[in-house]
Structures are given as C-alpha cells and as structure tokens.
C-alpha cells in the first residue's frame, strides 16, 4: 500500500505546483482570451528573483514574498503598456499578441542565461521545512507537504476573493461584459492590468516554491507553460474551481504515468487536452468558461 500512497502524495504535490502556475493564467486567459505564453517567462523571473533575494538575505521566506514582485511589475507593464495598446489599436489580432508573448518567453530565457549563466541553482529550504515526517506508515518530505498546503491555501483564498469581495465581482463582470463595466465608470483596463500583474506574480510565486524540488535553470519556463495550458483548458477558461480540479487531474495523470506507465509519460496529458477540446470545449468543469 505504501508505494501507492507515496505516489498519490507525489501526484498531489505536482498538482499543487501546476495549480499555482495555472490559476494565474486562468484569470488572465479568462479575462482577455489571449494565449499568454509569457506566463512561463514570469515563472522563470520569479524563481531567479527569489534566488537573488535568498542568496543576499539568506531567508527563504523573504524570497517567497519578494520574489513574485518582479513578475508582478513585469506583468502589469506588459499588459498596460504593450498588450492593451496593441489590442486597442486593432492592428494586432489575438494571434499576433499570442506570438508576441512567444517571443517574450524566449527573450526571458536568454536574458536570464545572460545574467546568471546556464548553471543550475536552487534555493536553500529553511530548517523548519527540512527533513521528513512519518504519517500513515510512510515517511514523506516536509517541504513537499508544504507545497501541498500552500496550493490549497492559495486556492481557498482566491475563490473567496473572487466570490465574496467587490474586486471579485468587478472582475467577473469585466469578464462577462467589458464594455458594460467601462460604461459604469470602472477603469477596467487598469483593473485588468492589475489582475494580469497579480496572475504573473502567482506564476513567479510558483517559481520560488518549485525551486527546491525542480531547481532553477534558464529554460524552466518553456517546458512547463504547455502543461499549464492543458490545466487551463481542461479546467475551463477563467474558471478558478475548474483549474483546481484540472490541476489535480493533470498532476495525477503525469505522476502515475511516470510511475506505472512510463511509455505514455510524455503524451498522456495531451491526449486528455485533445479529448476535452473536442468533446467539452468549455472545459470539464466550466459553465461556458466564466470566472469561478
């Protein structure tokens, strides 16, 4: 029984990491229907900025808090000064903006390689998160349990914010009918840029959290961004709860494929994505793809 339980926990841990990354993208994708490949770039930025903070201050917690600030700024600037004006000028279609973010993804990988070189780094985990804990007859690393806890906490927090608060309501309205909300006098563009920044910060946060497990390297954002899209589409565009369940499905599929069916390891989740896009384009959990 033990190995199955450990693989289950491994699966949940991977799911939470993917969720942290996907939830930011779900918000952005739900709001602006832009295929935002730059999300992988913000994942990388957060990790490296967290690394700088951790190396200088020696504190993991500070890296966790300060790391996501750079992606927040970058995300806000990208949306407010680049994507929004280009979209409004009407010359660039949604697809052009998607390709623009494709360029940003590689530029970030190159910039990080330029500054930090191509070595592999990691962030030292604090003593309280070191070692293992015995539960249900198995020993499991504390840090990985920490990742699971953080994922669930963020999920609950976000769903509360979106469902219960005024900001959440404005956001959901903005997604449903942007013109209407602008007509109501709410500067929706600024709010969307804020949300874009917040989504990017979440990606950066995921970068710092994943560092001890997945290590930090220049092309870390390129691989994981495709997995994130699988989660967002399976969960339903802009659907918070959906992306939580979807990240569980994707995380489990990936982990159990690695453990029990190695041949299918690299393409199991894509079969899932294609099936969902054909049979339930609005995602497994979505009403027609609206926030929460």
């Amino acid at each position, binding site marked *: 029984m*033990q*190995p199955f339980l*450990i*693989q289950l926990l*491994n699966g949940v*841990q*991977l799911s939470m990491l993917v969720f942290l990354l996907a939830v930011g993208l779900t918000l952005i994708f739900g709001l602006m229907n832009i295929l935002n490949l730059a999300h992988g770039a913000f994942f990388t930025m957060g990790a490296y900025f967290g690394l700088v903070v951790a190396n200088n201050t020696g504190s993991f917690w500070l890296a966790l808090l300060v790391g996501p600030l750079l992606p927040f700024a970058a995300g806000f600037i990208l949306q407010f000064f680049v994507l929004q004006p280009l979209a409004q000028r009407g010359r660039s279609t949604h697809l052009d903006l998607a390709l623009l973010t494709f360029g940003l993804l590689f530029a970030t990988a190159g910039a990080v*390689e330029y500054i930090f070189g*191509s*070595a*592999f780094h990691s962030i030292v985990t604090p003593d309280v998160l070191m070692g*293992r804990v015995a539960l249900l007859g198995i*020993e*499991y*690393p504390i*840090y*990985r349990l920490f990742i699971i806890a953080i994922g669930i906490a963020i999920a609950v927090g976000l769903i509360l914010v979106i469902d219960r608060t005024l900001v959440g309501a404005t956001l959901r309205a903005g997604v449903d009918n942007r013109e209407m909300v602008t007509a109501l006098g709410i500067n929706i563009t600024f709010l969307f840029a804020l949300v874009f920044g917040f989504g990017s910060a979440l990606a950066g946060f995921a970068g710092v959290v994943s560092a001890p*497990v*997945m*290590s930090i*390297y220049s092309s870390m954002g390129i*691989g994981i961004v495709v997995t994130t899209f699988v989660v967002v589409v399976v969960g339903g565009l802009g659907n918070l709860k959906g992306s939580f369940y979807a990240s569980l499905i994707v995380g489990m599929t990936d*982990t159990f494929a*690695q*453990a029990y069916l*190695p041949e299918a*390891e*690299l393409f199991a989740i894509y079969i899932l994505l294609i099936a969902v896009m054909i049979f339930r384009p609005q995602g497994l959990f979505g009403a027609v793809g609206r926030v929460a």
Partner: protein
Amino acid sequence: MAMSFKGYALIGLTGAIGLAASASVPTYAQEKGAIKIGLMLPYKGVYAVPAESIDRGFQIALEEFGNKSNGRPIEIIRADDELTPSVGVQRFNKFVQSDKVALVAGVVGSNVGIALSELADKNKMPMVFVNAFADEITGKFCSPYIARTSFSANGFEYASGKYWASKGVKTAVTMGPDYSAGRAFIGGFKRGFEDNGGKVIEEIWTPFQKTKDYSAALTQAANSGAQIIYAFYAGAEAIQVVKQHADFGLRTKIPFIGDHWVYDEALWPALGDLALNAQHVATHYPSIETEVNQKFVKAYNAKYKQDPDVSAALGYDNGKAIMLTLEKLGGEMPQDRAKFISTMRDLTFDSPRGKIKFNAQNSALLEKVYVVEIVKGPDGKMQRKPLDQFPGAGDLPGCTKSF
C-alpha cells in the same frame, strides 16, 4: 502573349542542372598557418559542469606541447552544441565549411555524437570524441574518420557490475536517463552484474534532460525489493537525483550506488556530505602515484588552484592524443584525412589514468578501472581513496566496416 511563368521556370531549371554538372569537389585549403582545431562541448545544459572541466584538461595538454606542433601554432575554435543534436550539426557544418578546421574534437553527449558520426564520415572530417561513451559510436556508427580517446560504456561499467556482484549484492534496480549513453552504461553494468551472479530486477528510465523531479521514479525503485539502486546520471541531473534520494529518506532503506559521474568531484560542493563514503568505480583520481598523473595534477593545480576531476583527465587525454598524432605526422595534416585517425589508432601513450591503447575501431581502451571511496582527507577536504582495481573490459562488437 508573354511566355507563361512556367516557361521561364523551366529555363531556370535546365540552367541549374547544367551548372551543377560542372561543379567540382571542394578541396580543403592547405594554408601553412595555424592548425585550427574545432572544440565542441555542451557549455549550456545539464552537462555544462563536466564540459568546463574537459575544456581545462584539454588546454593543459596543449600547453604541455607549448600550444605548437613542430612550429605551427594550434588555434582552438570553440562551439557550444547545447547537448542538442540539431545544434551540434549546425556548429559542425560551420566548423567544416566556414572555419575550415583541420579536425573536430570534444563532444560529450552520445546523442550529439551519433548525429555527427554520419556527417564526419560524409565530410571526411576527422572527429576525435572526448566522451560520447555509447557503444554504437565506435560500433554501428564506426568510421575511418572517427576516434574516441575516452572508453566505451561497456569497457567501464562492466567492471562496476562485476565489483558489486563480488561484494555479495544479489539484486539491483537500475535508473538512468533514456538516451544512448544512459542505456549503454546501464547495459554494461547489467552484463557485468549478471555475469557474476547478480540480478537486475527492474530498469527505470527517465526522459533525458526533461526530468527534474525524480520522486515518482525513486519511489518505484525504492519499492522494487532490490538491495541497491544502481544509477548513471551526470552533471545537474546527478545532483538532483542524489538529493531527492536523500530527501525521501531512502539512504537507509536502499543505497544509491553510482559511478564517477554520479559522484563527480565537480559536484561535491553541491552534494555536500551526501557524497561522503560513497563507493564507486572511477577511471581516474588525483592521487594516482604514476609520474604522468602527478605532473598533470601539478600543472592543473598551478593553473586552476584545484585538483583535476574525472572530466579534466578525459579532456587532457583528448588533447594529448591529438598533439601526439600531430607530432608523429610532423605537424602536417595529411591529404587523406583518414590517415590522421589511423596514425592515432597506432598510438600507445601514458595517460594520468594509465596506458592508453586503441582497438581496431579507433576506440581507446581502459587499461584498468579503480574502485574508490570518498573519504574526508586529513585537511578535512573530501578525496577519493582507492579500494580495489579491475582490468577494463573490451568493447562490444558492432562495427561492420574495416579500415
């Protein structure tokens, strides 16, 4: 009516065929100046650390010859193959066509090695691999233009399998990256281990350069019921898998046995005391008492303020073999480039790891394989202590060409 577009195009085509017929075979310019050597290594990617050490060892070898071969200076042109075959091919073409190098050295990844073997053969460009341990490199893909100055996977890992079987280990589960060198190393270990009474219960493969989190694979290995995990990983992958093996508390349940790549001296800073008292096979360690080795270690320490690691020794062998061959050829690249490789094949020379001889497929053989343990030295620094010694095994058959 003006001739339709098709008419014009047909003229263009016939013109093309005519000009093609007159094209002659390009000849390599034989200018008298520097001898240009193309050094291709994966400066980026998971094997970046070993690549750096190889480069250093290579430079030490060239400096022993004063960076000249009877009067003609040696010019090293570096290229980064990023451990990616398609990039390696592009850099190789640039070496051949644009830099007009005399020969190409280096190449760590067997995946890049396999990709270049055909190109080297077709372009008649001598290719002297520093690593690329996969057996097929000098087996199925052997060529009169390809040599390897390190050793074949079977030659090295067979001894490892034999050693652990002789230590009374009955069952093992193997782990390795899913690419040619990974399969060759684990295959070598399995032959050595099973020929001497061991049994490999399960082989676990992780996608090469794509796996960062080994928790799933390690959990399967830990529960396979085997006594040891035998793994081949190198560079950043080795750090990741050894650390996660410890994170999951498996050090007490099932030891993680590797070779001199998993516990490479260059990775000791990252591994810390996880590497302590790890026993493994190695082809070289700094305290080998031979005169050639001490001279190499002294020169390396002088230039880089640290002891050479296994990769540095391999880089040194690569450089030395090239320089000795050039010396034998009087500093002159022969018109028939295969002669450069055949001259190297007849070489035997003393290397820090022992005597180097080449077999009929231009693959260097391992005179002996050491078994070492990583212990804390008197100065508190970690070092390798020799425990045992095995003769290197031969290469697997597979080369159908004769040259």
